[in-house]
């Protein structure tokens, strides 16, 4: 798993690539927590290059979503890969995360 972050006025875009599983999900959790600690209210996850997303990753996302929404922000998906989309759907979490077809649409929605 690798990620890069780009911060805008109202939102930060985190692009994640590779496998989000039990051996990498805590790294993602730390990254997202860091962004919140820096005062980022809103996060977009660019999951276009996610090749694997297990329940460990999903748990991190659900937990982060709860925290960020409690502080008045939101975390959404942009351009999610078929595999990431399938993981959300299989786990029954597809309705929990707003999902945008591309980064622009997601950035423009905040």
């Amino acid at each position, binding site marked *: 798993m690798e990620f890069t972050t780009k911060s805008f006025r109202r939102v930060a875009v985190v692009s994640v690539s590779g*496998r989000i*599983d*039990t*051996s990498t999900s805590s790294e993602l959790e730390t990254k997202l927590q860091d962004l919140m600690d820096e005062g980022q209210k809103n996060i977009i996850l660019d999951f276009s290059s996610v090749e*694997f997303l*297990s*329940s*460990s990753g*999903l*748990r991190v996302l*659900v*937990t982060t979503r*709860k925290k960020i929404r409690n502080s008045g922000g939101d975390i959404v998906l942009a351009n999610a890969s*078929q*595999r990431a989309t*399938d*993981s959300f759907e*299989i*786990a*029954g*979490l597809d*309705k*929990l995360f707003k999902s945008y077809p591309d980064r622009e649409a997601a950035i423009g929605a905040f």
Partner: protein
Amino acid sequence: MEMANKRISVPAFHQNIETLCNKVQDAAVEAGFDDRTAYACQLATGEACENVINHGYANEGDGDLILTIKITQGQLIIELCDTAPPFNPSIYPQDEDWEEEDPPIGGLGLKIIHKVMDKVSYTRRNGRNYLEMHKTDPYPHLNSHWNSSKGRT
């Protein structure tokens, strides 16, 4: 009927799960599954492995993950064996207290396995757990992998 068996054993470390997932992905493609079905199979395998490491063995690396894959035409049988204490994952988890806006963050692993696989069965033999997961190609007519090789002979 053509049939292929693959076996691979790795020490039960998180980092080794990827290797097993990749084996399942390749086997599913070999069985003629499309990529989404193949992904579903490796996802279920990953969940089963995560559970053995996180809940079965006392510590990471305390035992092995032994994966056996049986490939037949349009069907995959994935068997995961471990030497951790007995646990039966074939019991389908209940969804009752699921709130859409605030879903429980536990229980996703078993949910995924059961959602994705056609049949999940468990046996304990000789101090080992055997989890067997069956998947049949949901689109057998679309995936001509086996059919076309038959056609050629």
